[in-house]
């Protein structure tokens, strides 16, 4: 089934098309959400929300970009909103247990990973999350998800040159943040 046929079938509310869409694009959406939120359960919930939104708003999809670009965009937006909501909630101390279990990379990395590795992952993703929004999106999509510069440009609606620049600045800022963290903690 071509992409256009798939979209047309979803517009006709064909349940087989729903299954095809989910089977084909679940890894993309799930791993994109996961690369931002670093929690398997949250990534699954967000993936579900993204697909429901896609099915609901498929009539608005004009086919000017690839469906994967649209899905990336939705997954990124949902994930960033989720992080923002999470930060706001933890600011008011409502989800203390999440701090302990959910977000500290406990379920986000393999159980056999060493505690040091889990700590490093937390430090790394905290540093990534403290980057500016555009740098964070470009860096995460490229470095963690392996999305090409051209597709990131399309997802973010900017030029490829801007993507390159964003990723360069993100990398540089990330290393500065990590260096400052380790300098403090090594002394």
């Amino acid at each position: 089934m071509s992409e256009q046929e798939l979209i047309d079938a979803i517009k006709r509310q064909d349940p087989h098309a729903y299954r095809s869409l989910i089977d084909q694009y679940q890894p993309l959406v799930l791993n994109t959400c996961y690369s931002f939120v670093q929690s398997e359960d949250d990534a699954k919930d967000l993936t579900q929300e993204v697909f429901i939104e896609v099915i609901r708003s498929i009539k608005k999809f004009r086919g000017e970009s690839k469906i994967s670009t649209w899905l990336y965009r939705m997954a990124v937006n949902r994930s960033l909103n989720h992080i923002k909501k999470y930060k706001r909630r933890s600011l008011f101390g409502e989800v203390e247990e999440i701090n302990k279990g959910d977000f500290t990379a406990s379920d986000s990395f393999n159980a056999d990973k060493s505690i040091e590795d889990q700590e490093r992952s937390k430090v790394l993703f905290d540093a990534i999350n403290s980057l500016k929004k555009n740098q964070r999106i470009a860096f995460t999509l490229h470095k963690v998800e392996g999305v090409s510069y051209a597709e990131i440009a399309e997802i973010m609606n900017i030029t490829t040159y801007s993507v390159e620049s964003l990723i360069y600045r993100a990398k540089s800022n990330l290393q500065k943040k990590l260096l400052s963290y380790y300098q403090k903690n090594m002394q």
Partner: protein
Amino acid sequence: MNCKEIHNKLNAYLESSLDDDQLRDFNMHLDACDTCKKVVSEMELTMQILDRPVKLEADPFMHTRIIAELENESETVKWKFKQVLQPVLLGMIILVGVYLGIGLGNRFYDEDVFSNQQDSEVNLIDLEIDTYANITSDIETFLLSEE
């Protein structure tokens, strides 16, 4: 190289873009400085996490969950629609009832009977006045005749 230079060159070191001389100086400093060695090692290990990102397995129940959620949503919409529709319908039925009641009332309301009744009431009053006048004149006649 001193510690500050090491920190400045760290990005280039992690990107493997130091030339041979710089790399030799860099490594020499690390051999002599434990703190820088630890920092550089931690930085390397941390950045390496990005080279092996964790990929999640697709959830086999995702499709079922989404379909269930969509069905649940349409049920909720129907229920909400019912919730709104029911009072509106009830209101409309009451309005129609009141309207029909007024209509039916007007239909059976006999204007002629009323006007006849009115006329007869007027006639009766006239009659009463006439009778009163007659009685008055009779009394007058009686009184005058006595005289």
